[in-house]
């Protein structure tokens, strides 16, 4: 009996399967714990030993999205009986909703800055990568190395110069400032990744389009871009994840108007005691956009759609 080199044996398949499942469980447990904590009551969230089976509650989510004050008799009377389900939850704790929290705003800031910088990074990165891949650029190798070298130090090492620069340019605590900063940090990665993807697209396709009566830009737009979709999608995911999760610069450079969710979430702890369910709820919601974005783009992540039309 013989086995081909590419076909794994039954035992190998089982072993690989078990390893993958174990790995998935190990990485998913903290995540599941966060999601679960978001639905616990404050008491359950800090009980020891930790409770695994608990009565789900939306208190964490209500606390995340609202600002509350301790209610006096007069205030309760003025407000009348609790009507909505979230009013009821807060009344049970002897508090009354005084308005929305800032989480919604911070979350929107994250969306604007994260997706804004990713979009800008893709536009600039694709253009630069195309030029580096196709044209004779003077000092091409040196320029590419220079672009890469901006990633060789941790970005936070230049935090103070950037802080001073932003203050003088009036970019402190602005959406534009954060978009520009994250774009600058991500651009080196995106130029290098995208250049690799564009290099793999045979130049013959563009040449065919040029002869078919299209201009260089039209050839780029109609022929190169659709084929680079895979690369653009995966690069965009990398850029978004970085900009979305970035904490240090967000703490340093934003406070009021342009603060993103990462520096905001820990501040929940300070406002009304150690409200772990609200923190966990904030973290859970924070995970959703990147997850949705990745799932939407996942079909582009499957390599091979551009390969095969090549005569070997």
């Amino acid at each position: 009996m013989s086995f081909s080199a590419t076909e794994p044996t039954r035992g190998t398949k089982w072993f690989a399967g078990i390893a993958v499942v174990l790995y998935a469980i190990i990485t998913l447990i903290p995540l599941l714990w966060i999601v679960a904590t978001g639905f616990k009551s404050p008491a359950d969230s800090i009980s020891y030993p930790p409770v695994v089976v608990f009565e789900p509650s939306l208190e964490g989510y209500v606390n995340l999205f609202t600002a509350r004050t301790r209610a006096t008799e007069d205030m309760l009377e003025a407000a009348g009986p609790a009507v909505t389900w979230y009013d009821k939850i807060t009344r049970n704790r002897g508090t009354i909703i005084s308005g929305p929290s800032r989480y919604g705003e911070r979350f929107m800031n994250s969306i604007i800055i994260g997706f804004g910088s990713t979009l800008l990074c893709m536009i600039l990165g694709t253009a630069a990568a195309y030029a580096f891949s196709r044209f004779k650029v003077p000092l091409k190798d040196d320029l590419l190395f220079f672009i890469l070298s901006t990633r060789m130090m941790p970005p936070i090492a230049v935090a103070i110069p950037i802080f001073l620069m932003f203050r003088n340019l009036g970019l402190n605590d602005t959406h534009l400032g954060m978009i520009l900063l994250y774009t600058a940090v991500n651009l080196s990665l995106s130029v290098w990744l995208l250049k690799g993807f564009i290099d793999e697209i045979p130049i013959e396709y563009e040449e065919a389009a040029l002869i078919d009566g299209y201009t260089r830009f039209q050839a780029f737009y109609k022929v190169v871009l659709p084929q680079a979709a895979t690369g653009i999608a995966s690069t965009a995911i990398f850029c978004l994840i970085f900009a979305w999760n970035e904490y240090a610069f967000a703490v340093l450079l934003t406070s009021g108007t342009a603060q993103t969710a990462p520096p905001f979430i820990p501040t929940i702890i300070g406002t009304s005691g150690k409200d772990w369910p609200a923190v966990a709820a904030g973290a859970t919601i924070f995970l959703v956009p990147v997850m949705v974005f990745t799932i939407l783009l996942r079909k582009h992540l499957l390599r091979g759609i551009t390969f095969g039309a090549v005569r070997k």
Partner: protein
Amino acid sequence: MAEVTLTNVCKSFGDDVALDDVSMTVPDGSFVVLLGPTGAGKTTTLRMVSGLDTPDMGKITIGGRDMAGMTPAQRDVAMVFQQYSLYPHLTVRQNLEFPLKSPILRTPQPEIDRKVKEVAEVLQISHKLDNKSTALSGGEMQRVSIGRALVRQPSVYLMDEPLSSLDAKLRSDLRIELKGIQANSGATLLYVTHDQIEAMTMATHVGVLDNGKLVQFGSPRELYENPVSVYAASRLGQPRINMLPADIFGGAPAAATHIGLRPEQILQGNGEDSTVHRIEHLGDQTRLHLSFKSHDLITVTDAHTDLKVGDIVKIRPHEALYFGANGARVA
């Protein structure tokens, strides 16, 4: 359709001289085949005409217009590439429509549909029109690729070994098809190949390239019967021309160092003795491998020959070609 001229065209890539002072006229409505081995400059010539590369020196005209500074789109040429033929993200139909939808042509949709249908029928790909172009076999891809050129009526069609990846039957079908299309439409075609049968069957003119130089240009018949050099002589003819020392039969011109003998230039039946050392029956003809004065010769004989290995065949030359020491023809 238009006449294409190249005048003193030179092109180098770094230290490599790809084209060395090439001048050539592709007459309006002709089918010109460029022959030569890999690296002879055939593809470079096509790219110069197409505008994908520009000559270092010299001039190219299409239909009397100087092409200097013109983009490929402005030149109104169609090209079939040897490789990477189809846009992989489009269907077969979209591939065929692509040139017609260009900003230069802006063909109305009914016209596009009509042309695509017509070309698809000629190339027998009608049933594949809505397939993804990646879901085709190599032969089908290449037919679509030819179709993408044929949907247009450009000044000149440029084809870079378009049939080289096809199987023998399809290749001979498409050879006839292409020749028919060209003859009926009066299209000008500049065609690169290293397949001499394609050159002989389709070309009105053949250009032989050797290391970037155009060594001979003329009708296939002229090239076959009257080659200027050993190199040009060995481009055409199957089995290949036999090269032997000039004085092997006697009577050679003084300057000749080699005698070139095509099969029909070797008369069998009288003359000097040679020994049969292999026989290949090809059906319509039989190839004889002969040993003659310690040289090997290949010639053809009757399909139903009774000759066997070891038999003696008497041979003598007839209207042979003579070449000098540098390979040039002397008589």
